[in-house]
């Protein structure tokens, strides 16, 4: 079975038509991270091109999809680097303070939850519901660009905090504060707009 997959994979890896089937997945991946349709499409295009040209680089050890995702990750990081050179996103100070303020607002002065997280029952059921994904998207988009970038670098690209800090030139503490804030607001929004309504 594994050998079959690998042969099938090798054939797919150098066949532009076979690679096309992954385009929508790759686009969603890039779009979540870059939040810019044109930039995401460019990154995916470059990825597919690099894949076709370097099809021999496919080792068969992973699936074609994992292999493509790896290439895309590099394209996205390249893009983020270019972008941060051209227009530094990290204007520290004000933003950092407001991140902490958002967190503070979710807790009382004595450190108790302002509104206690409720039980979500069996939340995985929501995965099957198309409407849930619309809510999820809406909630994710409420995050400011910088917060969302750190969050997706961690959760989508699965970079470590060290790698994120290095890429963005921020401290580990700053990074943890942003991730904490991202998770808190996503949680609150999902409870408000979905799980609290079930």
């Amino acid at each position: 079975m594994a050998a079959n997959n690998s042969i099938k994979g090798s054939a797919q890896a150098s066949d532009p038509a076979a690679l096309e089937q992954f385009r929508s997945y790759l686009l969603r991946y890039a779009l979540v991270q870059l939040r810019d349709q044109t930039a995401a499409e460019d990154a995916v295009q470059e990825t597919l091109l690099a894949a076709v040209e370097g099809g021999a680089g496919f080792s068969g050890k992973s699936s074609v999809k994992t292999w493509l995702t790896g290439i895309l990750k590099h394209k996205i990081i390249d893009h983020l680097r270019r972008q941060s050179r051209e227009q530094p996103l990290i204007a520290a100070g004000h933003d950092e303070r407001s991140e902490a303020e958002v967190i503070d607002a979710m807790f009382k002065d004595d450190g108790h939850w302002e509104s206690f997280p409720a039980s979500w029952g069996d939340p995985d059921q929501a995965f099957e519901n198309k409407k849930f994904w619309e809510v999820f998207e809406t909630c994710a988009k409420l995050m400011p660009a910088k917060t969302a970038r750190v969050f997706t670098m961690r959760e989508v690209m699965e970079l470590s905090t060290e790698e994120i800090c290095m890429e963005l030139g921020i401290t580990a503490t700053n990074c943890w504060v942003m991730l904490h804030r991202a998770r808190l607001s996503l949680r609150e929004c999902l409870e408000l707009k979905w799980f609290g309504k079930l």
Partner: protein
Amino acid sequence: MRFIPSCKEVSELLSQAQDRPLTLKEKLALYVHLPLCEGCRNFSRQLGFIRSAVKRYIERDDTPRS
């Protein structure tokens, strides 16, 4: 951090537990707080859910449903 940490501190630790290994002291803080606090236990489960939801979000249309 006081002996029994606040929900705010615990939520911070639970979030960071997704990004780095916690120290023994931090684990102990969770150990004393969580059994007493349903809100933070729910939050802890929700963090796991959010993590898998992000992955599912990207994967979701992968196989066209007919």
